[in-house]
């Protein structure tokens, strides 16, 4: 409901008295947050204009005064004092008295106890970032060491493993990831075959599309794409799960019950990932080759039989096995870093969010670095 007849501002200011002598500011209406800026501007302007020797602020007509309005009055008082005017508040309504008493205190202008947090300089930030990165690397290495020890214990004491949890994580990280892994790999195979066919066709080398795709997918793209998808789907989920448990004191509860959180929370996730990621990789390989097959049959006038035969001829078992080992290592890193980021959570919901993001970013970084290391190692080993 809008009152059209309402004055532009909810307060009123009337000024009586003589310039340079005693001046009375009579305030009325609502002295509140909504029209504070206008009031402030008007009062300052009039103060400038009248230059009173003695300022009396009459509040008799004030209907409502909120804390921001009261603060404005206190500001006026301070300003009057600083210009060595005599200042007086009169006819303070009873309802406003409480608020003035509550606000009129010495610690209104206490400077911040902590100095303003400066924007730091680029060099400082670089240094800080490098230091944090080094510290982080140390923590991740320590964690991976502990994790490997826990895994070794789990493999030598299979009864200590919570196999029910392993199965549940296998379902979540593996089975439920199948649709997206299949779709992405299929499209990837399709695109790769199409793009390479455009080039190879110029040389009449269409027959090489199948081997090219097979080798690229099985050796590199399959494991990498699968690892990236698992990092996004499951690495983040692991970090969020453990992080939330940390916030809810559930990890503390486990520790006081005498259960090693590593064995309880990390080992099942890592084991599950190490089983399902290589399997997902095989799926990804198959779907990518299927994508290539579609291009081969529809675009290159190859028969499905020739395409598959060429694919099969170009792949040796020794191409497939190392790439599966590689994806097993990716799985260890993705799940490991997810758990580590989860265990690092301190504080509340925001920290869980940060940990989740960081789990994915760190996993992607580790995947690429490890993949390069594998590429070099395989090259020199002649695999």
């Amino acid at each position, binding site marked *: 409901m809008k009152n059209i007849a309402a004055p532009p501002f909810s307060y009123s200011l009337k000024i009586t008295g003589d310039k340079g002598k005693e001046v009375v500011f009579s305030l009325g209406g609502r002295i509140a947050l909504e029209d504070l800026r206008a009031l402030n501007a008007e009062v300052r302007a009039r103060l400038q204009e009248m230059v009173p020797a003695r300022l009396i602020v009459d509040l008799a007509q004030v209907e409502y005064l909120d804390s921001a309005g009261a603060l404005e009055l206190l500001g006026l*008082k301070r300003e009057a004092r600083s210009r060595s005017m005599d*200042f*007086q*508040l009169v006819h*303070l309504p009873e309802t406003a*008295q409480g608020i*003035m*008493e*509550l606000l*009129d*205190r*010495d*610690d209104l202008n206490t400077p911040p106890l902590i100095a303003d947090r400066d924007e730091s300089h680029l060099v400082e930030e670089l240094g800080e970032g490098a230091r944090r990165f080094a510290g982080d690397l140390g923590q991740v290495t320590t964690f991976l060491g502990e994790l490997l020890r826990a895994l070794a214990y789990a493999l030598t004491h299979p009864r200590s493993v919570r196999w029910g949890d392993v199965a549940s994580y296998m379902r979540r990280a593996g089975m439920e990831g199948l649709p997206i892994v299949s779709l992405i790999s299929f499209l990837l195979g399709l695109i790769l075959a199409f793009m390479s066919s455009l080039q190879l066709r110029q040389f009449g080398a269409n027959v090489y599309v199948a081997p090219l795709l097979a080798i690229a997918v099985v050796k590199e793209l399959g494991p990498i794409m699968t690892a990236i998808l698992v990092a996004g789907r499951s690495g983040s989920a692991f970090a969020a799960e453990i992080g*939330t*448990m940390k916030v*809810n*004191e*559930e990890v*503390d*509860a486990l*520790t*006081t*019950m*005498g*259960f090693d959180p590593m064995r309880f929370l990390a080992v099942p996730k890592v084991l599950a990932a190490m089983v399902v990621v290589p399997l997902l990789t095989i799926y990804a390989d198959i779907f990518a080759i299927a994508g290539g097959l579609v291009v081969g049959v529809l675009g290159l006038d190859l028969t499905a039989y020739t395409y598959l035969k060429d694919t099969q001829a170009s792949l040796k078992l020794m191409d497939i096995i190392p790439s599966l080992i590689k994806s097993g290592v990716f799985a260890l890193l993705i799940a490991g870093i997810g758990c580590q980021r989860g265990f690092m959570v301190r504080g509340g919901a925001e920290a869980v969010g940060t940990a989740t993001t960081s789990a994915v970013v760190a996993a992607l970084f580790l995947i690429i670095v490890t993949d390069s290391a594998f590429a070099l190692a395989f090259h020199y080993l002649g695999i």
Partner: protein
Amino acid sequence: MSHPPIIEVDNLTARFGDNTIFQNVTFRVHRGEILVILGGSGCGKSTLLKHLIGLYQPAAGRVILNGIDMRTDDADELRQLKMGIGVLFQSGALFGSMTLAENLALPLQEYTDLTPEEIEDIVNMKLALVNLAGYGNHLPEEISGGMKKRAGLARAMVLDPSVLFFDEPSAGLDPISAAELDILIKSINAGLGTTMVVVTHELESIFSIAHRVIMLDKSAKGMIAEGDPRELRDHSPDPRVTDFFNRRPGLGRQAKGNGDG
């Protein structure tokens, strides 16, 4: 003392980096008593509790529980230590992915070789003990805050520990649920003789359950009082202690009315 104390804390000091939380805290907890650790915010009560349950390592001093030093590396002793204590965390700390029954069954599955049927019987009995009979198949998210704490208590008691620790049991509860929990604490203590160490700053809880209290203080960075709560409230020479019991803020607001108005 006819019984040796069940918990001995000697010259315990807690420090994070350069920040000393408290130092030289020494006290005993006797078998069967309810000891309340109290003090204002930030005085280190929860930190002290975390030292007592082995989550934090002391910077100096030692904690001995059931005759075993908490710093032990011996696997059997550690196991004995862990089985001898139960902890109710502030939020209940139930495992969210498990039903209440599964939460309670977990320690039994890990520490005993009971059959699933026997475990189920024990779980049902403990749930009934905290007035949650029939809630075994509920997930923690499906029950109220007070029920979560009671379920957390049931889980803490499932191995019949000799000491139960409580971190602010009434935090976040309405007065009725808090009182229910206090009654439960008292009845378990009376019925089972379980020793209890409770961290709280709720005066009502303190007077209702405590046999004895120790009080920590932030400015003193240590323990400033020990004894019967009513005795301390009425006769302590230390104003910090009487202020606490009489709810008098030590540092008043600096509000003052200037005579301008």
